[in-house]
């Protein structure tokens, strides 16, 4: 177990775009070492929420506190420095770089080598590089990409690209992990494996995970608590079971023959 991950507190967060309110005063709390699922219909505001948490969007109002820090208003890279890592719903892997280098990029915040050190190939730089490549392989093995390390990420099939993104986020040694539809585009078997990876992360690293996913099976398996959004508003919040039986949720999101 590592040092307790800090608490994530989202308080009446509002995000507006020209003529459209993507998030309307939502709030939830993620307890350390738990998996918190955010679900809701398409366009409900889940990714927007992630974009605010990771500093891609500016919040119109409201606050996001992570441990002592106020995240709203921080630039993306500062938030990353605080140990917030995420995956992207539409893949954001470099087309040319190998999987290994893509993962090494995840180590950026943990490494120090600057232009001069790298340029002169100082021993410190070499050592750092070696140490972190070691860890990268460890993580690749953990998610099951060890054989793909040398391939250009762009040529992996869709499902494995999703895994690569997950691995890259893990490489940031995050305290808070934001996963946007990690199992989209996978077969049932692969979903189970990926779910296992996520569970493994929570259990062995004890970090907080916020999960956006449309596959209720996975959500039910992994989530300790669930927040449901609809049109940017929070319509339900609680344990998976309670949420799943909430009529509003069924109406807005699951549809009659619910969890299959």
């Amino acid at each position: 177990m590592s040092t307790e991950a800090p608490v994530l507190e989202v308080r009446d967060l509002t995000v507006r775009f020209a003529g459209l309110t993507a998030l309307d005063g939502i709030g939830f709390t993620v307890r350390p070492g738990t998996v918190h699922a955010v679900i809701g219909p398409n366009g409900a505001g889940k990714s927007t929420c992630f974009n605010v948490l990771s500093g891609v969007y500016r919040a119109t109002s409201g606050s996001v506190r992570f441990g002592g820090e106020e995240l709203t208003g921080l630039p993306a890279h500062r938030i990353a420095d605080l140990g917030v890592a995420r995956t992207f719903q539409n893949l954001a892997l470099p087309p040319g770089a190998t999987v290994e280098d893509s993962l090494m990029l995840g180590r950026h915040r943990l490494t120090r080598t600057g232009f001069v050190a790298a340029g002169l190939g100082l021993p410190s730089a070499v050592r750092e590089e070696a140490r972190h490549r070691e860890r990268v392989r460890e993580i690749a093995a953990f998610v099951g990409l060890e054989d793909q390390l040398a391939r250009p990420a762009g040529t992996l099939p869709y499902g494995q690209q999703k895994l690569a993104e997950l691995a890259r986020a893990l490489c940031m040694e995050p305290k808070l992990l934001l996963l946007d539809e990690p199992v989209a585009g996978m077969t049932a078997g692969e979903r189970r494996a990926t779910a296992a990876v996520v569970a493994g992360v929570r259990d062995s690293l004890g970090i907080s995970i916020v999960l956006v996913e449309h596959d209720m099976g996975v959500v039910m398996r992994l989530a300790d608590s669930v927040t449901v959004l609809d049109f940017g508003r929070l319509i339900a919040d609680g344990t998976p079971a309670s949420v799943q039986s909430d009529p509003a949720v069924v109406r807005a999101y699951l549809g009659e023959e619910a969890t299959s």
Partner: protein
Amino acid sequence: MSDPIKRLRRPALWTAGAVLLLALPFYLDRFWLQAGLFAMAAAIGAIGLNLLTGSTGQLSMGHAFFLAVGAYGYCVLAGDSTGTLTGLNLPSWLAAVLAVALAGVAGGLFSPIAGRLQGAYLGIATLALIFIGQHVLFNAHDLTGGFNGRDVPPLSLFGVTFDESELLVAAVPFGSAEKLWYVALLALAGCALFARGVLRGRPGRAMNAIRDHRIAAGVLGVPVARYRAGVFVLSSMYAGLAGVLLALVFQRTVPEYFGMILSLEYLAMIVIGGLGSVAGAVVGAVFVSLLPQLLTRYSDALPLVSAPGTGGVAPGEASRYLYGAAVVAVVLFLPGGLVRPAFRRRKTTTSEESP
């Protein structure tokens, strides 16, 4: 793959190449040495531009401006005040270093603009630098000497002065070209290795990330703005050094030289050689700066060329045709450039193992 042979072959090739390059001044005459010097200077500049455009995806058409800063910076810092010209009369080696730094500063000053703009917009915006540069070069007479430019004080390092005064080395008279050759060689090697280190290491990955997906790069903890500025400064310093070298080879700075055409040639270099790779920049630079000179020199030997005035294709024109055709052909038939960037090679070799 027969690894041991491979492992032996590469260093062998490298040493052979190095020895050859070191020996050249004893055999080539000045024209060739000068051509080589132009090429080496260009290579340094091209490496810099490739860091910026090839690896970080910031299209720059203002490279010539930073070359000018380097070249003129050196003249002003090392030259002495004569007549209308002002000069600081610093020791030339110090002047060279400061000139490079100066170019870096210039790049830093522009980087706020560079930070805001993308792609073609950035490209044309940097073009503004060229015009500003030209304007200053022509009008700041006391610094630049206006249209007739400035004499370039010869470099002197460790008591050796790189001017025309000839010293005999192994019965071969060494003029400025011969002496400068080694300086340039050293500088180029240094620059290439440095750039290689940068690209293969942490900064290089961050730069590529910025090129490939700016937002993602930020989310992964890369301070995008700072990095873009940093790269801009670095590439400007490369350009500055190239400028100093060029000035030393020309022995006189002329404003006309640092125009848009020059910038475009540098772009051509990195594209022809291969975007994002150091070797590419070097090869491209050699190609682009040597080809026209060869074509001009042997122009009258070219096929279906007729003496000027007899209506046919004049030598100069013939060489232009060939140059243009070469640029097009290389890019079309070798998309990745003369030197394909490393990852492409890895892709093909590794994909054999995969299903």
